[in-house]
């Protein structure tokens, strides 16, 4: 998986965005397992939960919802961020910091311009969990600066029409997904 992704994006995938066309894909599990696939001994992997409406990574990592990304953005990146480490897995996790909030309040083209590089400095690789594309354009904003953009599809659950709509949304922003990842039970 890791080799396929890096081969497809022609460079080391330091920033990976996992997009889902709708809520048919359980992105928490998918991002987590993707991070496990990328895990190695030479660099750390940071998982960032940008779905402030429906956060979930903190549960997977057995961490508190806050403090997280929202608090850090609220304080304009001060003090320096220290993402919590998920026990036993060697992964760093930055929780969403809130729930039932519109992520666009905090994540926009201006904030992404500074916080994405800042988070990249915290770890060797950052994997972003984003809200479904039919609910929020945050994924599109993050995809613009990512090395690899992966479209997650769950066979039997994701509809073709939703995938086409997500593709059009990305195309309107001038973004082409690096590849498709099947999320299977």
């Amino acid at each position: 998986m890791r080799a396929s992704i890096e081969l497809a994006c022609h460079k080391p995938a330091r920033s990976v965005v996992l997009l889902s066309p709708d809520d048919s894909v359980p992105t928490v599990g998918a991002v987590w397992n993707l991070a496990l696939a990328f895990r190695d001994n030479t660099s750390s992997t940071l998982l960032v939960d940008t779905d402030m409406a429906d956060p979930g990574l903190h549960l997977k990592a057995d961490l508190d919802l806050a403090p997280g990304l929202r608090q850090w953005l609220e304080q304009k990146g001060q003090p320096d961020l220290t993402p919590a480490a998920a026990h036993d897995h060697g992964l760093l996790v930055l929780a969403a910091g809130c729930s039932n909030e519109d992520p666009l309040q905090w994540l926009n083209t201006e904030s992404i311009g500074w916080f994405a590089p800042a988070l990249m400095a915290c770890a060797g690789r950052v994997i972003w969990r984003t809200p479904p594309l039919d609910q929020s354009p945050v994924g599109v904003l993050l995809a613009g600066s990512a090395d690899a953009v992966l479209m997650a599809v769950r066979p039997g659950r994701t509809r073709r029409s939703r995938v086409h709509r997500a593709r059009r949304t990305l195309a309107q922003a001038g973004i082409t997904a690096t590849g498709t990842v099947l999320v299977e039970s």
Partner: protein
Amino acid sequence: MTWSEYGHLLLRHGWLMVAAAAVCGALALGLTTVQEPVFRARVRISMLPGVMDWRMRDLTKELARNAVATFPSDELLAAVRDQTGLQTNADGLRAGWDDGELIITIEAFAGDAATAGTLARTAATAFHSRRSLQFTEQEFIEFIEFEIRNREPELQQIAPNVMTNVLAGLFVGFAAGLTLVLILHWRDEEWLLTRQAIEKSVPQPVLGSIRLN
């Protein structure tokens, strides 16, 4: 869809069409065995112009058409019931006119051959005698030859028709199977159930799969 995709579709789901056709064919065959039999008895009455000229021929045809159009009249039905002692209605009797052969056909339908034969014979005789009387009164009888060709009706079992039923069952089953295959194909494509459907829907390559724990 390309021809190759149609081929794959047939290979994958073709058995459904065959199975549906077989099931419906068997059902039709089963239905045939419980279907009530229907017999048809047919008596022919010729109605020829006495003189072969166009005016007489047209007049004969006109008389025959009128006679057939009003068949069976209420009086004729009552007479048939009286003479045979059988209960029949207008649906059980039918008349037709062959413009080329100049023949009126009286048909009777019943659940057994004997009843159908009796009804057809009685109806034809009653029809012939009433119309003969009418033509005599109208002074047409001298110009036409009006006679029953076969006193013994031609009998035929018209239902159940095993071949027709089985063929209809096979056709319906095949059509139903085809519909089912198309619905399954749509489901596969719309819900991205197969790797081919996914690869067709997304322009980017499928890089791998993640299994959820």
